[in-house]
């Protein structure tokens, strides 16, 4: 194991198994969930310097593992029975502190369980801990957390510590480092897909409405979606099936049956039409990423797909649209953090002062910035010019995709404009940081399913990912194509190097 490649990873053999392999191993009795969980607890110990977890829950994990072993013995195993996962600290976990990466919720203990984490618990998962994240899911580098930066377990040949991406940076770091077999993330503008690309793991954002948002700390209600972060495409398919489903408590959750996503991995894409959106080829694009994108198209073509050039004309307006709508929704959603009912309270002479003191102190800089932008674009006199305008452009962006999907079945694009960048070289101005989301934001605005698959390394030895975007509720075609791409790429995960 070359020291130049890995900052900090698990040393245990058991943790090298994928979710699917461990599922099968547990079922066949090759090892127990307690043994597997102990290996992961050890791995959390070995990788603690990455700061991937805000809160580790080893005692709870071992209790749950023992219960899983009992169910496995009795033949009552759920679809993810006994598998130790990380849970992004944006999901409310009953009785377990949930911070959203913020000081304003530093002491918040939810009195209820989010629907998605409950679904996973019902499937038999074991909770290793709450993973670190950008504060209120706002960020692309996991550098805005009140609980410290997360480090990517991958490091470049020059040895500098790198960002794992964000906002689900903790989740991707722990999965890549072998400190969880899988983890949950949320994706509003790319927060699952971009960090997955930076950390060389698979990250899937399903169609908006596929997973319930109930119990997930809200950032932007028309954009937020929960999704799996895993080592392989098969793992993501298994996990998404467990996470997804209609929830009457979330009126935006879709009344759609959840298919057996694993069954979509047929390996057969003959005749599939793969669209290459020309507007995603940007001026000054990193030539290594452009080359990988072409390579991806070639792999799919060799597997029998037809490569088709398509146009998504409003692509370049996706980022400004997002940076009107997401902060606007956030300014509304974060209005609840006022020190009255939960979380931090900083005293004031009167109620208004208490609100202002609490929020100024409790929220970090990026969150305050976005709340201000959001407040401005929604304010009287500016609502039409900004918010309504952005909603109209959003409509055009969604229409671009609908039109493209009349001609093709799935789209292939890069996931991120660069590989993981050094932690101490982060862009000093927020807008440059926002450009990290350039390839992921459009699918979020249109509510479409998107997956990032690690497919290659750049010259510095860092992972690069490719993204596949499908039509609404057709995660099947996304998984099917991703499986073929993954098989062609033969990407070696960090744990195997």
């Amino acid at each position, binding site marked *: 194991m070359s020291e130049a490649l890995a900052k900090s990873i698990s040393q245990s053999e058991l943790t090298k198994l994928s979710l699917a392999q461990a599922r099968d191993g547990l079922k066949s009795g090759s090892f127990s969930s307690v043994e597997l969980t102990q290996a992961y607890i050890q791995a959390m110990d070995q990788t603690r310097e990455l700061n991937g977890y805000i809160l580790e829950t080893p005692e709870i994990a071992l209790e749950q593992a023992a219960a899983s072993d009992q169910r496995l013995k009795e033949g009552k195993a759920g679809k993810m029975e006994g598998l130790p996962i990380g849970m992004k600290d944006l999901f409310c976990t009953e009785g377990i502190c949930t911070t959203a990466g913020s000081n304003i919720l530093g002491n918040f203990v939810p*009195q209820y369980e989010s629907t998605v984490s409950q679904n996973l618990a019902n499937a038999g998962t074991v909770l290793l801990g709450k993973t670190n994240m950008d504060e209120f899911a706002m960020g692309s580098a996991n550098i805005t957390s009140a609980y410290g930066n997360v480090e990517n377990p991958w490091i470049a040949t020059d040895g500098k510590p790198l960002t794992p991406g964000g906002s689900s940076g903790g989740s991707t770091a722990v999965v890549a480092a072998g400190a969880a077999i899988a983890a949950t993330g949320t994706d509003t503008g790319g927060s699952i897909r971009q960090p997955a690309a930076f950390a060389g793991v698979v990250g899937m954002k399903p169609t908006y409405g596929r997973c319930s948002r109930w119990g997930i700390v809200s950032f932007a209600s028309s954009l937020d979606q929960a999704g799996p972060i895993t080592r392989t495409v098969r793992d993501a398919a298994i996990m998404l099936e467990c996470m997804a489903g209609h929830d009457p408590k979330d009126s935006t959750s879709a009344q759609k049956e959840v298919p057996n996503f694993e069954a979509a991995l047929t390996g057969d894409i003959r005749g599939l039409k793969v669209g290459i959106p020309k507007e995603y080829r940007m001026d000054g694009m990193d030539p290594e990423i452009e080359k990988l994108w072409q390579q991806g198209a070639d792999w799919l073509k060799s597997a029998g797909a037809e490569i088709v050039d398509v146009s998504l004309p409003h692509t370049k307006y996706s980022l*400004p649209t997002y940076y009107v709508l997401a902060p606007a929704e956030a300014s509304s959603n974060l209005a609840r953090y006022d020190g009255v009912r939960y979380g931090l309270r900083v005293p004031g002479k*009167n*109620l208004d002062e208490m609100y202002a003191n609490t929020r100024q102190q409790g929220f970090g800089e990026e969150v305050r*910035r976005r709340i201000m932008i959001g407040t401005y674009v929604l*304010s009287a006199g500016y609502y039409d010019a900004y918010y309504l305008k*952005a909603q109209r452009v959003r409509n*055009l962006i969604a229409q671009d995709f609908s039109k493209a999907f009349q001609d093709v079945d799935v789209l292939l694009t890069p996931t991120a404009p660069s590989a993981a960048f050094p932690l101490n070289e982060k862009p000093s101005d927020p807008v440059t940081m926002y450009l990290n989301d350039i390839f992921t934001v459009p699918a979020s605005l249109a*509510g479409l399913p998107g997956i990032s698959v690690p497919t290659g390394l750049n010259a510095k030895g860092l992972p690069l990912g490719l993204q596949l975007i499908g039509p609404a509720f057709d995660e099947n075609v996304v998984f099917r194509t991703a499986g073929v791409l993954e098989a062609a790429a033969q990407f070696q995960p960090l744990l195997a190097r």
Partner: protein
Amino acid sequence: MSLDLETVKRISFLARLKVDDAQLENVRDDLNNILGFIDQLNEVDTEGVEPMVGVGAQEMPMREDRVTDGGYVEKILANAPEKAANMFVVPKVVE
């Protein structure tokens, strides 16, 4: 669209955030930077285009008007910074 310091103060008040006078200019510059980026949207012809509120079904799912939840005051107050007599306690509101 360029913000002046007065507008920054007004937005802070609307957002119930407290910006120090010393920080006002930095915050203004920050926001102007982002607003400059957002101004690109004016290039798009959106004549006759409906605003898209959200993705998916636009009809609100309905349910029976029955009480199906509640009755757990302790849970609601569990995280309260200050509570008394089954209520949240806050500083008095000065009229």
